[in-house]
């Protein structure tokens, strides 16, 4: 065992009808069922208070499910405390022990896992190698930068080769540049070791960038599960459409459905697209700002209300009959003027129909 490189014992995680109630009647997580495949990086995404952190902490064993069952691998862990689960977690605050050196921090968990001193040390050194902190073992956490502390926290969790590795908003204390770098490193390590990772964030861009699967949560339950592309291109409802990337939610009317293709009408403009199982009647059209074609031959009319130059592109707020619309244009050379009347069309792919709720 002593010579083994750090590898992975990735296991799937399964939630079966799990509910968490705080106190008497505060429902933090409401009857969630969820299957997380082994070796995948799954992100729990949602606004604050949606239950994503509670879900993560129930995997860790830091919160106990009020009802339902949780499995890690083929083992029912519902009632097991954190200590007895083969799971490690990287905390938002890193939670490095301030009275121990970096190496002691990384060795900490190993000493409770049946390694003798020499093996534990060897593994801890390997772990520090893996995150690029080979020579920092003797420092105290307070002598490291934020990014380095983050890496120590990751190494400390990694060396235990947990069945599941959990991240609780790990990048929220880092600046924008470091964030991008760290999330790539986390993704690289996860893929090269083939670990099961559950990752909580409220940053949709981060989620899209690192995940195999994203679980979007809202009001204590799951709004949608899918790959980043599925969520972005085919959101299940208005909430997901608006939360993942920005979307214009435009009221429209389905005038007819034929062979899975719907005819819609909005502000006098007719368009055909996938009906997604909806029947005739009022519906909502979700359109990403980049999927609006400005100054198209065919479309609805709108006037430019605001034009903002943000460097790589132009951002426009348009006034249409049904309300404001947000659009972006790659071309910055000759922007539209405020007050200018435009005909706005829809790109052939991208816009999706959502049920009216």
């Amino acid at each position: 065992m002593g010579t083994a490189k750090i590898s992975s014992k990735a296991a799937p995680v399964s939630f079966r009808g799990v509910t968490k109630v705080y106190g008497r009647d505060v429902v933090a997580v409401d009857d969630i069922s969820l299957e997380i495949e082994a070796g995948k990086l799954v992100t729990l995404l949602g606004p604050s208070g949606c239950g994503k952190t509670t879900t993560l902490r129930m995997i860790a064993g830091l919160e106990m499910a009020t009802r339902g069952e949780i499995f890690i691998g083929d083992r029912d862990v519902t009632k097991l405390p954190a200590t007895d689960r083969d799971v490690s977690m990287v905390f938002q605050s890193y939670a490095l022990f301030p009275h121990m050196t970096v190496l002691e921090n990384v060795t900490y968990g190993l000493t409770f896992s049946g390694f003798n001193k020499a093996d534990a040390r060897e593994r801890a050194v390997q772990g520090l190698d893996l995150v690029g902190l080979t020579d920092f073992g003797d420092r105290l956490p307070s002598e490291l930068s934020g990014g380095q502390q983050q890496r120590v926290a990751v190494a400390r969790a990694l060396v235990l080769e947990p069945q599941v590795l959990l991240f609780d908003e790990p990048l929220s204390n880092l600046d924008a540049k470091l964030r991008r770098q760290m999330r790539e490193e986390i993704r690289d390590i996860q893929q090269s070791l083939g670990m099961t990772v559950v990752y909580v964030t409220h940053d949709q861009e981060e989620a899209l960038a690192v995940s195999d699967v994203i679980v979007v949560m809202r009001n204590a339950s799951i709004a949608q599960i899918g790959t980043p592309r599925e969520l972005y291109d085919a959101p299940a409802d208005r909430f997901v459409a608006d939360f993942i990337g920005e979307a214009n939610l435009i009221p429209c009317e389905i005038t007819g459905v034929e062979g899975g293709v719907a005819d819609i009408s909005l502000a006098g403009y007719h368009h055909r697209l996938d009906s997604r199982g909806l029947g005739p009647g009022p519906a909502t059209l979700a359109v990403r700002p980049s999927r609006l074609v400005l100054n198209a031959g065919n479309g609805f009319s709108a006037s430019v209300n605001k034009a903002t130059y943000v460097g790589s592109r132009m951002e426009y707020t348009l006034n249409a009959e049904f309300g404001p619309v947000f659009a972006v244009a790659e071309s910055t050379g000759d922007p539209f003027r405020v007050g200018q009347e435009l005909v706005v069309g829809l790109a052939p792919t991208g816009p999706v129909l959502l049920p009216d709720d």
Partner: protein
Amino acid sequence: MRRASTDTSSHSVLIFWIATGWVGFLLLPWYGIQDGFFKFEWLTDGYPFDDDYAPAAFLIGQGEKLWLAPMIPFLVAPLFVLKRRKTDPTFAKILILSGALGFSALIAQGFGIGIRGWNFGWLEAAFGPLGDRQFGMGYGALLVASAFLFIFTHGIAARGAVNGDVFVVGAIGFVILIVTAFVFFPIAKMLSAAFITDGGGYSALTFAEKFVDRRLWGVGCLTGAGRCGAALNSLFLAVAVGTITTVLGLVFALVVTRSGFRHTRVLRALTVLPIITPPFVIGLALILLFGLSGAVTVFISDVFGIQPTRWLYGMPGILIAQILAYTPIAFLVLIGVVEGVSPSMEEAAQTLRANRWQVFRTVSLPLMRPGLANAFLIGFIESMADFGNPLILGGNFDVLSTEIFFAIVGAQYDQGRAAVVALVLLSFTLAAFYAQRFWLGKKSYTTVSGKGDAGVHPKMPRGLSIPVFAVAGIWGAFTVIIYGMILYGSVVELWGVNNTLTFKHYVTAFSVRIEDTGIRWSGAAWDSFWTTVQIAAIAAPLTAAVGLITAYLLTRQNFAGKNAFEFGTMLSFAIPGTVIGVSYILAFNVPPVEITGTGIILVVSFIFRNMPVGVRAGIASMSQLDKSLDESSLTLGANSWQTFRKVILPLLRPAILAALVYSFVRAMTAISAVIFLVSANYDMATSYIIGRVENNDYGLAIAYSTTLIFVMLSAVGLLQLLVGKTRIGRRTAVT
């Protein structure tokens, strides 16, 4: 790998407790050894067959004390679960049942059968005369009881309580058990003693008779027809002390924060005084100044020809002594509050065109209101509970705490009356304690946020600063004189009669002779001094441990009934020492827990008297530690005990030291509970001093007190040094 190790390790804890139970039952003497807890002559003196020293198993084997037999099945049953897994429901059920039933059997026989056979008439009626008896429980019973307790909590944990955490559930069970045994049980016993008639029955009439006593509630001093009762005296005194100490405390807090006074460190040093001064020492110094042959009295009678009177003995003396003693406490409370008023509030008021006086009256003072209430209530409770000063200065002015003492020690020896008076006192302090919690629970004026607050407190208005400085100056000078008196009084031959300087008293108390056989501690005080140091040194770490574990449970764990748990553990703060003393005598001089007259009862009383301090210190510093530290340790595979030991404790070193020294010092200065609990073998310094005072041997008493003050000063100094040098890794700035 983690899976395997945790399953066996949790079982190994269980095996440990089962084995402990068996050792207690099979090997160790079941009953308390009369020679003392730490004496081991019994090993060679008839053990294991002699009745007094026999383990329970040997007793039963010889056909004696058969009522111990019902415990056997509950010691056997847990052995059968060892092969089962923790998640097996039968595992939990068997452990819970054997723990609970075994413990009940132990308690039932302990209370049911005493030194005169059956303890209750109905038991005798049901089973006939017993013809046998038993004494207090000893090592064996202690081990078996702990075994049952932890087997029970193990079962509860296995059922999933508190995330199935064996250590936490065990700790909760342990704290509940000891608080019940050493706080609630004695108080309940005292409550029932208040109703016991002379014949041994219970009657509400007896209570009523003793309760509506003129000596308690008389209002003679108001109507001009004699004296007031002790209850009213205590109440007047406590309200006066609370009010005056609050005002004085506020005065000092204002001087420190809002006057531009430079030497604030000197004032802050004042806060150490009440901690290191035995409570009655101020009273002694007052006698040296204003007593019949006091320095001031003699001076005035010489110069003005005024006849010396005994005006000091009574309300005035106690009032002055308590004000001197408790103002620093009020200062300590108020300095935090006065500093806590955010300067930006006051600056905002200034920019809104309020002048200094208006700012103070409309913003600063109202924001300090909860602190003022808190300081008042603490002064009130301290005054109510004070025993030393009324004892030496009281004269004919009876207060509740001394009434209790005289009811039980004096010629009247009336336990029932002592219990009734103690109940009255307890209800006063509990009412104040409850009012304090209620008031502070409802209102929060905290204005300091985590954000940097660059402002400065405005100076107080001039009209206020003149009287404030005057009062502070007078008080400060008076305190210096008082402490000077104590020092001076200890080196004077016979105060007021023969003023030659001498070290005679120190020699009498602390002489040491070097002889062939080694050092002989020949001074009169050494005996009680070493006992005090020894008892305090044993009690201090236990107090700190119990306090910190309780604080850990309160800040770090969530469990059903946590609020009641907190209230129970903080309750002993509101129980005056004299009440503890009386209730301990009533509860622990008969089996099953028979520890009166031993050192153990002193240690136990200190633990529970000072536990709230440890709890508060622990809570204060533990809430500074981010909870994710514990959680990350748990997810890294450490269990909560390992987390507590490896993460929490190392980070709490300063708090632990503070709790240690504080409980050590408090144990050395305590008098109120101690005076009931000391015995010939275990005399404490404070009760020895009080004894000298009662014999008018002031010189020795004061010399001894001075020595104590210096001992404690060095203890506190040592603490400052240790805490100052303790370096733990800086907390990271990340939150």
